[in-house]
């Protein structure tokens, strides 16, 4: 099937700003799905609120555009009641980790089979550039005019600690790696997290004088390295990319099937 067959063409051009990284994530995701060859009827995409969540409107799957932060909770209901469906849950950084932080860690803890994509642009874009939990100390935002004193989460470490059985990170610059880790995440049985660093030149870039989309993507290129690389040892400031965790542990819906078997025997 061609990539075009996975989109709702009538809603294009999309609503994201020129230079936004979210369109690249959409592209990478569709290529990953196309390469795996999953039927469109078997995919449910659940998203929350924010720039990132609008991705669900553009794809020709079963799409559930929900409440701010709650995408994983809705997705849990969909998955539990129809475990054979593939659940893909794209979220923004504020969506997934501020208002949705509790749902995020608990979905990870349960190891319920779905793919959480954290499109991390370090800012609330839809509301006009307020600092998010991923903005970082010393950054600038419309709600941090004197500089931000909030520290960030490390999405990878948080996911690992919460119990996610597949954890990866990539960027909007590294599109081939993005397709590859998304494929692995979707095929993984369990809760998978893919953090994708994506640029918001409109707000985060402008507020922090990081240049335009090109400069921000160059930043991803020059300041990241593969997991466990020699470069990381030499320069600890580099952000690691790749697959951090991949483990086979009991998946929630499969475990519930065993509960059903136990309950129906007696």
């Amino acid at each position, binding site marked *: 099937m061609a990539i075009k067959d996975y989109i709702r063409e009538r809603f294009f051009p999309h609503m994201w700003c020129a230079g936004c990284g979210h369109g690249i994530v959409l592209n990478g995701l569709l290529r990953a799905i196309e390469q795996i060859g999953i039927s469109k009827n078997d995919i*449910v995409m659940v998203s929350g609120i924010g720039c990132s969540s609008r991705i669900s409107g553009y794809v020709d799957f*079963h799409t*559930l*555009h929900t409440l701010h932060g709650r995408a994983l909770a809705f997705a*849990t*209901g969909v998955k*539990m*009641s129809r475990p054979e469906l593939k659940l893909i849950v794209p979220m923004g950084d504020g969506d997934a980790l501020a208002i949705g932080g509790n749902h995020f860690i608990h979905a990870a803890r349960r190891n319920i089979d779905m793919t959480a994509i954290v499109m991390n642009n370090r800012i609330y874009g839809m509301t006009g550039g307020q600092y998010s939990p991923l903005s970082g100390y010393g950054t600038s935002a419309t709600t941090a005019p004197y500089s931000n004193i909030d520290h960030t989460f490390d999405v990878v470490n948080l996911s690992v600690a919460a119990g996610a059985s597949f954890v990866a990170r990539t960027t909007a610059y590294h599109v081939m790696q993005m397709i590859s880790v998304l494929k692995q995440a979707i095929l993984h049985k369990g809760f998978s997290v893919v953090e994708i660093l994506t640029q918001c030149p409109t707000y985060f870039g402008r507020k922090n004088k990081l240049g335009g989309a090109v400069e921000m993507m160059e930043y991803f290129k020059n300041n990241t390295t593969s997991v466990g690389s020699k470069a990381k040892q030499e320069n600890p400031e580099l952000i690691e990319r790749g697959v951090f965790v991949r483990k086979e542990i009991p998946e929630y819906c499969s475990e519930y099937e065993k509960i*059903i078997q136990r309950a129906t025997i007696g």
Partner: protein
Amino acid sequence: MSQNIRFIQGNEVCVEAALYAGLNFFAGYPITPSTEIAEHLSLRLPQIKGRFIQMEDEIASVCAIIGASLTGHKVMTATSGPGFSLMQEGLGYAIMAEIPCVIINVQRGGPSTGLPTSVSQGDVGQALWGTHGDHAVIAMTASNHQDIFAMTVHAFNMAETYRTPVILLFDEVTGHMRERLVIPEPGEFPLVERLRTSVKEGVDYHPYLPREDGRLPMSDFGGKHRYNVTGLAHDMWGFPSNNPSVVQGLLRHLVDKINNNSHNITRYNEYEMEDARTVLISYGSSARSALHVVKNRRARGERIGLLELQTLWPFPFGLVRQKCADAKYIVVVEMNMGQILQPVRMAVDNPERVYLANRIDGVFITPTDIKNILRIIQGRGM
């Protein structure tokens, strides 16, 4: 003994009724005094290949049941005041996206954490206007086990018929009380099943285009039609729209489908109402105390009756107006500061006839409380 007679708590009655109605998925979070509902369903649902999940909070619980409803299942959650507050966000979503689901609120004393183990009917108003934005809602209640069963089944039927969340407002007394329940035979109550679209694969399906009768056929997530569901104002395809005429049509539809079908949704009981000069209006557990007073006073020849409301929202204005037409005194008996008193006053002519007999201290209202009010009212200028 008949196999169908049980001596159980009201919360368990609600479980039996939900399973009778076809409940297949429950998500919830423990909270007194509703917890027994979750406990019993964690045991019962896997026995019928249904699914139970305890979520991280009430926000997640209501979201999870909405997700499960979209795959074609009958779903429910249960909570009490503080959890009901957290569910308002998801409740609004289910109203906007028109997702059938049932939300049980076993009421306790509030505001805030309030009186966790004491009875109250303080969430009646919240059920109507707790979630933001203009909307209509269905909220119902019952005072005894047989009616808890019937109203729970009715709630599932109304949720499916009108593609909307339905709230059941039980309370600590009915929830924890044990009394006899005769479990109805299969088929004794008609069940409304999910109305699914007959549109064939490959043909355009409009999830939000009402049929002539106002109902909207659904298509299960994972089925042959792929469509969008959103909490944003949306068009007939389910895609976001801020076109004023689309938004106007949507909001009218959301309100009209419920308010114009009040006759179908309304349930009530009446006792000794034929020639009643004093009409008590009550609902839920407080109706038991009101009925106690009516039976006692009738035995002594007083013309007194009880109108027990089971559907609270949409408020049955016409019914209340008609039943109270000849009453000299109308006394609303409830355990709050007058949340049903207000619509009763709006419903009747000469609202100065309407009085309140209430209790708000966490103690179950007694027949004596009601009699004391009657004594004051009836002693005045008779």
